[in-house]
């Protein structure tokens, strides 16, 4: 109860106040309901369309998770290659930086051409959007390994794989977790952008509802999409806490 009062209540208060304020503003007719729906209507739409939204949520969750898993795997591998020094780093690092500036949303139509109107295009979209934070943060972690620890491993004749798995990757773990936290939210955004074009999942449902002028359904779907992002973020936070709680300052006392 004490914990609830101290930690859970403060963020709930503004939420309730804002929801009630919107309800009152729209009910009073200051803003028209087809621009901003009444929160109570959004809630009713959510309940009425629970089945449809639930199915869409399942699709988007699957695509986001698949895209996120891919970007985690590929991102860490690419970062290891880039951190190896030598010509790989010199040849590809400029492109890794350059690709971050490509407007991903503009690529989504291309993905449909390449993968077709199906979940693969959505997964590709989620993957591309969430890839670079993983590469960038893993790379900075791998490159910041304490030189004395490198000396230590060198002195004991550690092989390159041993140095990678026993020193560099664990050392980069806090950075990797930061990258994954960012990537988890981005993967949901990427999936929904992809679905705007392909038509499935929560993104597709938002498009259809918008065309039907069912704005309360747009909001209901949006709410669910946000909750999905938050849930993924929370899961990564939990994993981060479980792996780093013993040693890293960022996870102490949390």
């Amino acid at each position: 109860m004490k914990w609830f009062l101290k930690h859970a209540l403060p963020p709930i208060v503004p939420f309730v106040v804002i929801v009630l304020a919107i309800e009152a503003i729209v009910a009073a007719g200051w803003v028209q309901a087809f621009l901003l729906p009444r929160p109570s209507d959004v809630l009713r739409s959510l309940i009425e369309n629970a089945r449809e939204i639930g199915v869409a949520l399942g699709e988007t969750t699957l695509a986001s998770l698949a895209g996120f898993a891919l970007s985690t795997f590929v991102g860490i591998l690419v970062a290891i290659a880039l951190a190896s020094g030598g010509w790989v780093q010199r040849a590809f690092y400029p492109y890794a930086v350059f690709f971050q500036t490509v407007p991903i949303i503009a690529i989504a139509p291309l993905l449909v051409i390449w993968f077709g109107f199906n979940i693969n295009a959505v997964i590709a979209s989620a993957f591309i959007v969430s890839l670079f934070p993983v590469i960038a943060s893993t790379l900075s972690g791998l490159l910041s390994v304490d030189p004395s620890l490198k000396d230590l491993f060198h002195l004991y004749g550690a092989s390159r794989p041993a140095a990678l798995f026993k020193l560099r990757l664990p050392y980069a773990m806090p950075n990797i977790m930061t990258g994954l936290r960012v990537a988890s939210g981005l993967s949901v955004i990427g999936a929904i952008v992809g679905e705007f074009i392909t038509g499935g999942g929560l993104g597709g449902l938002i498009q259809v509802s918008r065309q039907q002028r069912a704005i309360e359904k747009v909001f209901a779907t949006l709410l669910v999409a946000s909750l999905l992002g938050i849930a993924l973020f929370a899961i990564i936070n939990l994993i981060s806490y479980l792996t780093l709680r013993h040693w890293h300052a960022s996870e102490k006392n949390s």
Partner: protein
Amino acid sequence: MTVQVPSRGIGLDLRAVEKTFPGGVRVIEPVSIRIDAGDFVALIGPSGCGKSTLLRIIASLDTPTSGTVTRTQARTADPAHRDIAYVFQDAHLLPWRKVLTNVSLPLELAGVGKSQREARASELLKQVGLADLANRYPAQLSGGQRMRVSLARAMVTSPSLLLLDEPFAALDEITRQQLDDWLRVLWHERGMTVLFVTHSIHEATFLANRAIVLSTRPARVALDHDLAAHLPANRTPAVRTTPVFAEQMRTLFVALEGGPWA
């Protein structure tokens, strides 16, 4: 024979070792130093004088611009044995590993099996009085405890040459003296060669049998002094307060202050 006889130290011979950094800054003038097997040598010098570089060259972590470093070989049948162990300025433990697996790390990298290396690491932890901390993480230890774990890690391969680079510099005076006592006892028991870099004259005088004072950069030998001839072999904490001890400290101090102007 199953009983491991404490490995004797190895000798070291530096001949005209010189180091110039890229860009032309000379850190070490050609120095020649011979260190006998089983000796305890302190290397003293002002900060930035190149003493750490010299230690790194001895450990093959750095290469001299010219000159040679030769070591005698240790004779041992122990597959986990490493000739050299190096202790850094801070403990440098792996924070994601428990104390036990931090200590057994060198054995792990040498390919020693899990049960064998953990048995050896816990035996060593028992010897250094840290047995009850085996399952803690480094973040849960004090600075002095962390340094002891770092020393235990260095000792786990039964090195013949222990190199220490200002290992206790960041610790408080009381912890530092405790670790000094402990290191001297460890050396007595194991008989390895110890080369200890410090900028503390007090510490050097208490610990070492021989003190080599280096000048300011570029480093050269300003004084090579036999402490064992003046101080008792058994350095009890009380030795620190004797007049002879103060006299020896003064000798080193004069050499250090004399530096390039002497």
